[in-house]
């Protein structure tokens, strides 16, 4: 058998895992596939209706399109939530694959992150298409910064997912706890409202949540009427690098234990 270089093995394994994960998603049947892509539409429609119901005409008559505001933030938040939850179960679900010694546990997380990115990409395209059909003004203020925000969010989600995934392998409660917690985060992450619309005392508290910064960054760069005055990029960086290092450190220490689970 010819000897492959480490990067060749890494790419081969991740390609194989990526296609396998995708295949598994596709093999859930037509109904499963339909809901993967339709669910975000339904959720956003409901949230827009709720917002209109609560705030009445005031909510409907903001100077920018509220549906676009919701979609941009909600897709990003969903990506975070999905990466986190699929990373949480990655090691335990793929235990059988560690029989192939070239499959390292971290590969299973990387592959799952790539799949979530791919699905998010398709969802974004579908939203753009629907927005185009509805003749919305879809022009973003700064496309590059939005892309940067999304990619940064992927790295952040990967880092947090790695830590949680390792923890969940040894203490199952961690995964459950994070599942409940990430559901609650939806309310406290400035997905439904711009931060400037709430009282300063609440702003101060919410700004401890790194996701708020991501949401504000993405919102501000899509919608002309909003700006990124609340976004603390250094704070985001700290929240990315710290879990990344903790995750890598734990992983290096525990890799063998995870393999021989």
């Amino acid at each position, binding site marked *: *058998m010819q000897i*492959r270089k480490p990067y*060749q*093995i890494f790419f*081969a*394994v991740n*390609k*194989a895992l990526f*296609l*396998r994960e995708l*295949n*598994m998603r596709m*093999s*859930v049947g037509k109904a499963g596939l339909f809901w993967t892509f339709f669910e975000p539409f339904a959720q956003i429609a409901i949230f827009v209706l709720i917002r209109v119901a609560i705030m009445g005409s005031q909510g409907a008559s903001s100077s920018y399109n509220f549906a676009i505001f919701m979609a941009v933030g909600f897709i990003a938040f969903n990506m975070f939530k999905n990466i986190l939850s699929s990373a949480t179960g990655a090691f335990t679900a793929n*235990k*059988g*694959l*560690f*029989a*192939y*010694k*070239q*499959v390292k546990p971290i590969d299973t997380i990387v592959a799952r992150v790539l799949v979530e990115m791919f699905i998010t990409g398709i969802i974004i395209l579908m939203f753009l298409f629907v927005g185009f059909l509805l003749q919305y003004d879809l022009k973003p203020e700064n496309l590059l910064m939005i892309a940067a925000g999304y990619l940064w969010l992927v790295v952040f989600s990967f880092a947090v997912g790695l830590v949680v995934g390792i923890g969940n392998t040894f203490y199952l409660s961690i995964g459950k706890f994070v599942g409940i917690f990430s559901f609650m985060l939806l309310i406290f992450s400035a997905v439904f409202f711009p931060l400037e619309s709430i009282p300063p005392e609440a702003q101060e508290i919410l700004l401890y949540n790194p996701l708020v910064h991501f949401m504000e960054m993405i919102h501000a760069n899509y919608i002309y009427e909003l700006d990124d005055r609340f976004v603390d990029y250094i704070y985001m960086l700290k929240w990315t690098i710290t879990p990344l290092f903790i995750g890598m450190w734990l992983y290096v220490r525990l890799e*063998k234990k995870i*393999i*021989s689970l």
Partner: protein
Amino acid sequence: MIELKNVSKYFRTNQGRKYILKDVSITLPDGNIGILGRNGAGKSTLMRMLGRIEFPTQGSITSKNSFSWPLGLGGGFVGNMTGKANVKFVCRLYGKNAKEINEIIAYVRDFSELGEYFDMPIKTYSSGMKGRLSFGLSLAFDFDYMLIDETLSVGDARFKVKAKEALRKKIESCHILLVSHDMKTLQELCQTGLLVHDGELHYYEDINEAIESYNTINKTGKL
């Protein structure tokens, strides 16, 4: 050649440490090695350590050879995916290109005799069918060592004969590490033997000696 240096392996249990290997240093020359030992002595663990998917608590195991995955574990298969898709996945893990993948698929389809089941989800397979698929798949790759864990008994009588024949042919170009309780199979396929007992590892240049020692252990409880 496989080199074990001061290898210890233990599991923590309620009664303290349960040693599989205790400070073992040995160099195993290349060959078809049969692994013997009583139930729970650590045969499979030893094999998994040689295949580097389990790791010694202390010490190191080194070898320049390539090892297969432990054969016969259906664990790497996805129930929702077809047999073919699963074969493709393993090919990709080993970095095969499209042409090689097609060749391997054709070979496995032919060898495993699954018929139309080959294109159906694995979850519809019986355990014998799964065994046939995984056995055919492992024959399609070239390793220096194949790790086999008591799985020669897959399928019906006719397939067993065929599997053994194919394996005998395969051994001409590679070595095997075989864990088995079937002395006849061990004698047929292996020349040398390894006996795991009480944290010690005994190497025998003749498989028959290994089997004799194994019988002694079974009778008297010690070597």
